């Protein structure tokens, strides 16, 4: 069944079909619609979940941690300041190997306070053990949540998974969406069987203190698990494709990359714009395609190298910036080709911070300017006069 719905509704419907036992979340723009819809579903009896109205995002993350620890399927959603307030708990959830899903309506981080989209929030957690997936449109948001739970709850993984969606651009936009149904999701996503849980029949201790003799081993296991998650993310997407015919990528996705010499790279809703840009450039005879990074953590290095084996240049558009270093996705892509046989040129542009519009023409201009030469750290479309640029 196809329906015209808001991105936040696509998320809520998809989450409802995953039958979470416990939902805990706190309002923050632009995530709020998601939890409003979910609480209405609970109020109407369409969703049988314990919906906990917590006192903060820190509390929300802690509540879902506790729920997952007893073997309940748990869900939360947040953004920006809320995610940063959760950050201590997210590290903890990952370290304790507690699977759950959290949707992040990506938004910039204060100061100055801004409610609009970029990726500055989730990149802060890139070292936390949180599996980080980016969705590109409302249909993918519908499809990705059962996949996210399936990845999280795989006993070889048992980690939290975040589904990232661009704030406003996806949360508040209406798109036609092919709806999933309960029967499908129930078959696709089996009940949660935790690898460990708090149970009076088998009273284990969780969350121990690790002295220097043990801490490194626990982190090593996390590293290994993140690597193990790589094929699992891909397989889950493949399985979903087999059953629905829909494919938004596994670890990555590509568009018109077959004979491409240059790849334009991005994450999230920007992919739609990049595809349009590529169509325009192709019409002018440019050999260019889109590389969509769907799994930002784990970062699929091998897969990227494989896909880019014939690519001369990557032009990366980042919606975040690591102050004192550079554009984040670009740095990571660059690192992934270091001392490899094939080393494409890598350029990095900063776009859309704090919700700045990203006109396709700006992307095309960047492309034309950087084609064949490396450009880094370029803040696209800033007011040069206002910043008094050197």
């Amino acid at each position, binding site marked *: 069944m196809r329906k015209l719905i808001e991105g936040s509704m696509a998320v809520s419907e998809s989450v409802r079909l995953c039958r979470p036992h416990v939902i805990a979340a706190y309002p923050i723009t632009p995530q709020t619609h998601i939890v409003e819809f979910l609480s209405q579903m609970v109020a109407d009896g369409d969703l049988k979940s314990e919906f906990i109205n917590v*006192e903060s995002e820190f509390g929300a993350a802690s509540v879902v941690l506790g729920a997952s*620890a007893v073997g309940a399927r748990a869900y939360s959603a947040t953004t920006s300041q809320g995610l940063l307030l959760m950050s201590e708990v997210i590290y903890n959830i990952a370290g304790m190997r507690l699977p759950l899903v959290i949707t992040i309506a990506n938004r910039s981080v204060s100061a100055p306070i801004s409610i609009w989209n970029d990726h500055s929030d989730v990149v802060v957690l890139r070292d936390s053990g949180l599996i980080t997936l980016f969705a590109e449109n409302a249909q993918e948001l519908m499809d990705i949540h059962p996949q996210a739970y399936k990845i999280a709850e795989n006993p070889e993984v048992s980690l939290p998974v975040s589904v990232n969606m661009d704030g406003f651009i996806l949360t508040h936009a209406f798109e036609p969406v092919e709806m999933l149904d309960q029967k499908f999701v129930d078959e696709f996503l089996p009940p949660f069987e935790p690898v460990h849980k708090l149970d009076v029949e088998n*009273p284990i201790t969780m969350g121990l203190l690790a002295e220097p003799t043990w801490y490194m081993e626990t982190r090593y296991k996390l590293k290994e698990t993140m690597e193990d998650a790589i094929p699992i993310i891909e397989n889950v997407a493949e399985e979903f494709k087999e059953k629905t015919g829909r494919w938004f990528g596994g670890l990555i996705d590509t568009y018109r990359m077959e004979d491409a010499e240059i790849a334009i790279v991005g994450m999230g809703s920007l992919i739609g714009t990049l595809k349009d840009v590529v169509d325009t450039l192709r019409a002018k005879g440019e050999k260019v395609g889109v590389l969509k990074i769907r799994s930002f953590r784990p970062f699929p290095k091998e897969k990227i190298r494989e896909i880019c084996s014939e690519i001369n240049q990557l032009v990366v558009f980042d919606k975040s910036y690591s102050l004192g270093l550079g554009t984040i996705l670009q740095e990571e892509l660059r690192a992934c080709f270091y001392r490899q046989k094939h080393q494409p040129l890598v350029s990095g542009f900063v776009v859309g911070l704090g919700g700045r519009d990203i006109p396709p023409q700006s992307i095309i201009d960047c492309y034309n300017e950087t084609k064949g030469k490396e450009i880094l750290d370029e803040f696209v479309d800033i007011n040069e006069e206002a910043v008094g640029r050197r």
Partner: protein
Amino acid sequence: MAETTKKRKPKPPVTESLLTSGHRACAGCGESLGAKLVIDAAGPNTIVTTCTGCLEVFSTPYPESAWRVPWIHSLFENSSAVAAGVEAGLKALGKKEGINVIAQGGDGGTADIGIGCLSGMLERNHEVLYVCYDNEAYMNTGVQRSGLTPFDTHTTTSPSGKKSFGNQHPKKPLLEIVAAHNIPYATSATVGYPADLQLKVKKALKEKGATFIHLHVPCPLGWVYNTELTIEIARLAVQTGLFPLVEFKWGKVTRVRKITRERKPVEEYLKHQGRYRHLFASEEGKKEIKKIQAIADANIEKYGLV
């Protein structure tokens, strides 16, 4: 003795505690004693969440745990929220019936950094018993002042010195703050009166809602006294009026432990403890003791302890 025991039915042999031996608490630790009394009163069908702090560190250094019930530690400030999630998860799975959920933390984890999560858990009235182990400072990090450190107490961040008698703020009224959430049951208790404490644990666990025990647990290391005095000092805190034992139901005081016959001046309590040594060293210090006596008198007056 033989004659009297003959008539009584023999008690069964002592069994292993649910917080068992081999933990690394200091000798004479009031917090470990309190935790043992609480979990043994609660029984094996209990899931426990614990804040970061001495209790967590001494009982669960990997790969050893002293707990014989399902137990989880997450962070310094969230054992109440984790417990809320445990309770909600059990309810959603249809497994809550017959299972107690206890959240615990130190005075710092409870009254300072964790008070937001605690307040949320209480206000939503989760079926969770929260136990605050009040040793009146951040002991795990080396005896720093908390919001529950008493007036004129020497700690490493509120030291006494040439110009100070130590912590200048009175103890935060944690129990009143908790009780004001209008929860079914909130009480203070102490390791000084173990039977009273265990009765209160059982009472709390019978309620279908959030309950709270503010548990006074002397710390030989941080309070600087000889290890064998833990219980005696805990009793003296009650008998001087400095740690009143008060029970609240739905926000109203329903019972207090009277100290009419056992009432003692505060010096009796303070003199055993190195953290108050500075008060006995000068005439000014003696005046400070009068201020502490006034705090005790106000407690006694407020709760009608005599």
